[in-house]
């Protein structure tokens, strides 16, 4: 049904991005690029979350797909699977950049930043950083009962926030949700030991929800609001997002906030730490595909690249360890104020894992990518906390949903 025709000319590169935060830098990079090449770049900004998908669908439907999309590695892999992505080997090779979407030797994704999950707690209410499930639970209980606010926030519902949190909780208890190579992903969450561990995880989450404000469907901002308005003493969020936000409205509160890793069950170690990897995908088969590849390369090598990444410091981090240790990062004022968060990132850099890289040996996992796209895990928490499924039932609910995605 696709109709041909219309739209931007041959020398126009259509660029779809949800980085409105970095608009100034992006515009600078584009004008530098336009000075040097024959192409023009036309940016379409979307809001964060699902609206990139909506825009992409419309453009695809009209036969007017974008040439470059800024998206997560998981999305990039989906595009590749659908045959829409063009290889960007030129940019990746020899750049030292990670290569998360490598299919049959071709690279389809140019990472530009990493965004790890991270928790923040009230250091004036919690006596110390409660790192284990047990201490989190007892401390949260103490605070809920004594301090007039909830000790913790349990996220549920069809939001990215809830989905990432639940996934991370499972990882913390060494649940292997999937197994197998890219072309043969198997859902293993309800198999073998995984099942029991998954149930334990849900049980813990269920208990923690006693010490959390009720409600579901919270976006990142809602949880941050709970922290800001002192309705909760700790939240799990992404990077330094909470302090960046709270800085504006409650500057007095910021010094009472300390970063923390996700809670760990006794005896487990922190070996998978959810980190988004976001970057560029080049669309295949368009009139400006070559130009798009050029642009992506130019972008990654631009002098303003670090400015782009650091336009939301502490929330976005460079995609390489080298970048992480660069002067630009070290000299950043905000990062300097929150060295403890920076340390956490540095210390756990090797554990950072994208949801995509959850096949055997970190192979790209299309089921995980799709599950994230529909927030299956976030929904699972909802099923349990709001919908009153037992942890056992929840696990089999999740397993069913995941298998349904494979059809």
């Amino acid at each position, binding site marked *: 049904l696709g109709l041909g025709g219309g739209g931007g000319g041959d020398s126009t590169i259509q660029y779809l991005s949800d980085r409105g935060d970095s608009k100034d830098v992006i515009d600078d990079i584009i004008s530098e690029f336009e000075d040097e090449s024959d192409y023009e770049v036309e940016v379409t900004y979307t809001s964060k979350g699902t609206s990139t998908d909506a825009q992409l669908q419309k453009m695809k439907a009209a036969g007017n797909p974008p040439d470059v999309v800024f998206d997560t590695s998981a999305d990039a892999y989906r595009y590749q699977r659908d045959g829409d992505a063009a290889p960007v080997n030129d940019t990746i090779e020899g750049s030292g950049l990670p290569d998360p979407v490598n299919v049959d030797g071709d690279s389809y994704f140019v990472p530009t930043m990493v965004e790890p999950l991270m928790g923040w707690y009230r250091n004036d209410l919690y006596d110390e950083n409660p790192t284990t499930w047990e201490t989190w639970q007892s401390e949260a209980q103490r605070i809920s009962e004594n301090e007039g606010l909830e000790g913790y926030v349990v996220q549920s*519902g069809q*939001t990215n926030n809830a989905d990432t949190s639940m996934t991370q909780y499972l990882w913390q208890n060494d649940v292997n949700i999937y197994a197998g190579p890219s072309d043969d992903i198997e859902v293993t969450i309800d198999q073998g030991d995984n099942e029991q561990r998954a149930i334990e995880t849900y049980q813990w989450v269920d208990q923690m929800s006693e010490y959390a404000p009720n409600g579901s469907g919270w976006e990142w901002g809602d949880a941050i609001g709970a922290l800001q308005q002192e309705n909760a003493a700790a939240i799990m969020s992404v990077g330094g997002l909470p302090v960046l936000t709270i800085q504006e409205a409650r500057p007095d509160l910021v010094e009472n906030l300390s970063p923390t890793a996700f809670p760990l069950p006794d005896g487990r170690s922190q070996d998978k730490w959810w980190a988004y990897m976001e970057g560029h995908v080049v669309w295949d088969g368009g009139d400006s595909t070559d130009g798009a590849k050029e642009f992506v390369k130019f972008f990654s090598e631009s002098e303003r690249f670090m400015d782009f990444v650091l336009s939301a410091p502490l929330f976005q981090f460079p995609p390489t360890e080298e970048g992480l240790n660069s002067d630009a990062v070290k000299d950043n004022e905000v990062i300097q104020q929150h060295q403890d968060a920076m340390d956490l990132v540095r210390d756990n850099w090797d554990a950072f894992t994208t949801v995509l890289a959850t096949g055997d040996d970190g192979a790209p996992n299309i089921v995980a990518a799709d599950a994230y796209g529909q927030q299956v895990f976030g929904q699972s928490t909802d099923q349990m906390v709001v919908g009153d499924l037992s942890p056992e039932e929840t696990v089999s609910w999740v397993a069913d949903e995941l298998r349904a995605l494979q059809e």
Partner: protein
Amino acid sequence: MDERRFLLLATFVPVAGFFAVVWLAPILYALGMSLFDNPTGAASFVGVANYADILTSVGFPKYLWNSVVYAVSSTVLSLLVGLGLALVVNQQVRGGNALRTLMIFPYLLPTLVVIFMWKFILDPNLGVLNQYLVQWGVLESPIAFFSTLQWAMPAVVVASVWKFGSFAFFILLARLQAIDPNLYERARVEGASTWQSFRDITLPHLRGAILIILLVRGIWMFNKFDIIFLSTRGGPLEATTTLPIRVYQLAFSEVNFGGATALAGIMFFLLALVAVVYFRAFEPEKEVAN
């Protein structure tokens, strides 16, 4: 060509052309898409399979029910609020003009802004309502109105009524003011009480307007997307997933465009059915076409 004919063409051709381009064409295109699997990609004709899938899907009855609950409750409440207020303003109350200004304002506000306001008021963390309810001891802890199972739908409905109550208000007020005051006086001379005059004169006069409001507003609310999407995205646990929200999910997060358009077709069919029954039973277009 005489002037009459010229004016006839001048008034209808542009309008018909306009509707053909911006309504008919997209609707036909969408209905066409509903017959294909993956219509925006490697389209393959599947006939009514998309319709069958949608109708037999597990969630369908629930989404339909949500839509009906939302459309009916927000429409009826808007009607009641509008009716009550119209009766008040019609009483020549001083301050009635201020009230009228106040009422039209929400209607003109973008949904986005309305949702910002209501989210801010009903938010469990920043929300003023919760803050005061807790402070006054009515609540022990804040309620996340937009994200608890039992509160989400009422919250969405309240925001909708806030925005759309004035639609009914203005139409009803106009009708009320068009009623011959002598009818009330005659009724009083004949001995009718206030309540009897209301029942026997006011209500029958408002009947046509009420029916039109129910039909038009009802259809609009059934199709309403933005207010729900911006406030709850259909959650929690699909408690506010109405058919339009489902259409969006199908189209954009499940990339099932055939399904999405099929569902839209089903909605259209349902509304058309309601409308036809309505036309038959109440003949409201007499209000329009008389």
